[in-house]
């Protein structure tokens, strides 16, 4: 069970807004998160990962407290080890496809399996600049999965994929998420594209 109750002040052109989320997610749930631009969807994911601190809040994962502002408890991102797929992919320009995965895990068998799922097995020696947008996005997803996280946070993870690739990858990921027992939070601007994948949703509207 993931329990999140956070409040974060956001800067906006119209002044200050508050991002307030109070929700619980069952283990293994796959949740799509949507809402208007600037509402704080990416900020919400980064707060969970420990990359941004909220003004106030509690985050508990299976009775382990990741964050409790009242006791000034906050685990580092390194200790939370939440898989994170960044909107801009955040791939390392100096590393090849395989080196990205080797940086995340030493499990060679797992790396080979991920490469097959992401259809990147023939591109292992390529650096990100020689990959298409869709291939870069798949690599970002594989890298986040490489650490075998309990919680996966994905920020617009399928936006650069063509329709056919999206369907194939979503199907493969759905099976993989189930196998790994992953809880997944996916930010999207197009909630319909995730209809077959997600079993829950969260609308974020900053106030």
């Amino acid at each position: 069970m993931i329990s999140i109750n956070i409040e974060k002040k956001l800067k906006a052109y119209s002044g200050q807004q508050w991002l307030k989320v109070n929700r619980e997610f069952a283990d293994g749930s796959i949740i799509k998160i949507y809402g208007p631009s600037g509402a704080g969807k990416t900020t919400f994911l980064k707060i969970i990962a420990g990359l941004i601190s909220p003004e106030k809040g509690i985050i508990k994962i299976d009775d382990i407290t990741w964050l409790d502002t009242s006791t000034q408890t906050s685990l580092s991102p390194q200790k939370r080890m939440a898989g994170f797929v960044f909107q801009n992919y955040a791939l390392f320009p100096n590393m090849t496809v395989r080196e990205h995965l080797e940086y995340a895990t030493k499990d060679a068998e797992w790396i080979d399996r991920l490469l097959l799922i992401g259809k990147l097995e023939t591109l292992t020696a390529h650096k990100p600049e020689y990959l298409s947008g869709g291939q870069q996005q798949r690599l970002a997803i594989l890298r986040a999965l490489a650490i075998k996280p309990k919680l996966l946070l994905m920020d617009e993870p399928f936006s650069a994929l063509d329709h056919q690739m999206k369907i194939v990858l979503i199907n493969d990921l759905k099976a993989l998420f189930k196998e790994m027992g992953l809880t997944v939070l996916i930010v999207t601007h197009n909630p319909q594209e995730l209809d077959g994948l997600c079993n829950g949703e969260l609308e974020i509207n900053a106030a």
Partner: protein
Amino acid sequence: MDLTPIWLTLRLASITTLLLLLICLPLAWWLSKGRSFFKIIIEAIITMPLVLPPSVLGFYLLLAFSPAHGVGKWLHDSFDVQFVFSFQGLVLASVIYSMPFMMGPIKSALQQLPSSLAQASYTLGKTERETFLRVLLPNIQPSLFTAMVLTFAHTLGEFGVVLMIGGNIPNVTRVASIAVYDSVENMDYSAANTYSLILFCITFVLVIGVFIFNKTQAKSPLE
């Protein structure tokens, strides 16, 4: 023709560049992470040699490290180290004087890297140190090279600071720029020309090297 001043200059520039690389890498990384009033003060102190007359810096270093009093006396009495009129003194002055040339390109390159690169590494369980060495540092190589060449070239041309703290002691502190000045004072234009030409050629090759290297690196891997 005595080439010792040229070798002394190259030795000074090499040691200074190496020391500044070791000092500025962690310092630039720390400075590139967020802003605070304390960091602004540190940055201002590091930048001062860019705008301060070299003779002013040299004068204060001469006072500070004079073996007659203060820090200089303590260093001399406790560790038998003397910075004034010695090669160590030239190294110390060069490190301070050339620091902005090493710091600027490194810090600027680190700040221009997307913050998500480091964040992605943290979410993979990597420490800040590991992230710096394996993700950030390899992706600022062109700037690192530029910083090293600029520092080396700038140290080659130092005059005011070096003269103030080191004087003009043959084989010890008489670097090429001082040898040029000394030769002209002694009306030995031939020697002055030789020293000047060698310095000109070394500097020209270094600057051309930076341009060629940066041209081949023109397409940023982040594009």
